[in-house]
């Protein structure tokens, strides 16, 4: 059991590194808090300008309807409204022209194409309101599927957890080996009568435990402080978490065999993990991306981790339902770990 000596030493060194502790716990918690709170509550109405040129009662009612869905500011002339949009003060201007009530002139929408996402929301909302108002479409009857409240923490906590476990496991694991090589302690360890397997087992176990502490803290804070509900089994959450942690540990091992400086290790891990996090849907749901990007996302381990996590946390799915993502994730874990072990350099 001499590998435990190595594990204890690694953990002791880690706990004495305040910088590492900050990145392991404080920074991710800050992200979880900020993003979780930012996405909480009502989205708020979008500010638009309305210019009413038709003063029939019908137009009055139409503008009243717009008032329900938008935060409306009135303007007197279409030219002034257009200027405000051009200056970026408002996203869009809606002109209700003379002849609107006689169906002689269409409603005009002036929008800012540099604010594409919001503009398109305004456009579709306006289409809906207008069609409904003119009686061409029945009013919508909306029913939520799960009957459960949307809680952004159910998305943010696993997302940030996956990202920071991969980042810390990758950087921490690679750096500790690189530092040992620089300091000569790597050779000194190998000169002791312990096997190579014990050496690696001791190191990897310490980084696995750090990952476990991270997940426990992130989910603990999410559940206890922010009241995040987990509808599915916590055991399943732990299983997915364990796979993510082993993936992170394997990543650290792999990076340490290619990169020879501590700075290089953190750059390499960031260059891998940050795009994988964005594309894999750890920051926002991948449905917001174009179709081909969504296809790319599905070949990333981050996507499968987040997919499995949210299925269990938000929808209470069981193991059978998340099996494809869990298997995909396990495949990545095995590939990275085996590559890391095979490519590990035992020479100085």
């Amino acid at each position: 059991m001499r590998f435990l000596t190595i594990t204890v030493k690694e953990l002791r060194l880690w706990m004495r590194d305040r910088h590492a502790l900050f990145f392991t716990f404080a920074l991710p918690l800050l992200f979880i808090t900020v993003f979780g709170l930012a996405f909480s509550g009502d989205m708020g109405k979008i500010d638009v300008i309305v210019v009413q040129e038709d003063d029939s009662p019908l137009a009055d009612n139409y503008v009243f309807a717009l008032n329900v869905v938008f935060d409306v500011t009135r303007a007197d002339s279409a030219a002034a409204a257009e200027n405000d949009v051009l200056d970026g003060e408002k996203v869009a201007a809606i002109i209700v022209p003379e002849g609107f009530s006689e169906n002689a002139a269409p409603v005009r929408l002036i929008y800012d194409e540099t604010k594409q996402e919001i503009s398109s929301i305004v456009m579709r909302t306006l289409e809906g309101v207008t069609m409904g108002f003119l009686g061409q479409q029945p009013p919508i009857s909306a029913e939520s599927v799960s009957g459960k409240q949307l809680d952004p923490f159910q998305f943010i906590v696993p997302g940030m957890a996956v990202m920071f476990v991969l980042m810390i496991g990758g950087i921490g694991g690679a750096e500790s080996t690189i530092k040992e090589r620089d300091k000569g302690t790597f050779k000194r360890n190998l000169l002791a009568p312990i096997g190579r397997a014990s050496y690696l087992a001791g190191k990897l176990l310490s980084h696995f435990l750090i990952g476990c502490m991270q997940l426990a803290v992130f989910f603990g804070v999410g559940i206890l402080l922010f009241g995040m509900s987990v509808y599915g089994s916590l055991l399943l959450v732990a299983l997915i978490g364990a796979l993510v942690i082993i993936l992170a540990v394997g990543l650290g091992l792999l990076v340490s065999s290619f990169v020879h400086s501590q700075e290089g290790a953190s750059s390499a891990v960031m260059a891998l993990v940050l795009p994988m996090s964005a594309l894999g849907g750890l920051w926002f749901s991948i449905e917001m991306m174009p179709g081909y990007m969504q296809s790319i996302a599905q070949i990333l381990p981050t996507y499968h981790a987040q997919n499995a996590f949210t299925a269990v946390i938000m929808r209470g799915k069981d193991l059978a339902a998340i099996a494809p993502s869990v298997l995909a994730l396990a495949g990545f874990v095995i590939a990275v770990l085996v590559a890391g072990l095979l490519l590990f350099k035992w020479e100085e």
Partner: protein
Amino acid sequence: MAIVEIQGLTKVFNGRKAVDDINLTIEKGEIFGLLGPNGAGKTTTIAMLSTILPPTKGTATVDGCDIRRQPKEVRRVIGIVPQDVALYDDLTAAENLAYFGKLYGAVGERLKKRTDELLRLVQLKDRTKDRVKSFSSGMKDRLNLAVGLIHEPRLLFLDEPTTGLDPQARQAVWEMIKKLQAEGASILLTTHYMEEADYLCDRVAIMDDGKIIALDSPAVLKKSIGKLEVIEVKATGIPRTLLAKLRKLRGVKEVVQTSEGLRLLSPTADAILGQVVGLITSKKVRIDSLNVAQPALEDVFIKLTGRTLKD
């Protein structure tokens, strides 16, 4: 009784023989010196003996254990003090010792006692609970040595133990090595300081280009070069042509340029002194000092190879 027996040990790197078929026996309780210039194969030999580098051919036993077949047993017997300090900066002196002690299987009271003992030996008792990063380089060197001793090795490898130390610190390390020998350890020491080998070693092997070119006690080796005396000349700016001229002088066996000036080996040093001075001054070289001395180990190497150790 032998602690190390080396038979036909060879290491080839990219077709070059770094260590070329060496045979050697080191007795228990001996301080054995491995001398030679950089690249002679000393470090490669030590690396093979410490089981971290597999030999190309041949083998060796350490305390009866084969370095190829019983690497773990060999590692338990040997203690290695690397030339560069290899410690954990964020662990304390005691934690560094305890960590490496545990890797060697030491536990509990025995480990604690040994840690205390070593901290006292290297005069770090009052810094036990301080992290290594707060240590001076001299203190790190001493702790580095102590870590190599934590598992009470029967054979200690010291790689250039005094390189970069000032004369006072060097003397302190020498005393410590003598003390370890008195406690029963066998020591294999590599160095390129001849006076170090001369002072410490019971026997020395001189290595050059992967081979052992001489092996005996320092006294016998010095005698082996015959009744030679050494003329040491301290001077700067010596032209190459002067060396050639001096070499042709009757009664001069060997001339080499050193970092300080010249070293001439001659059986009749007093008789040729005048001619030597004449030749040097004729080249407009100013002599800072001149000295006739008994040969040192360095001169054995010069006699054997025609080069100094720094070449």
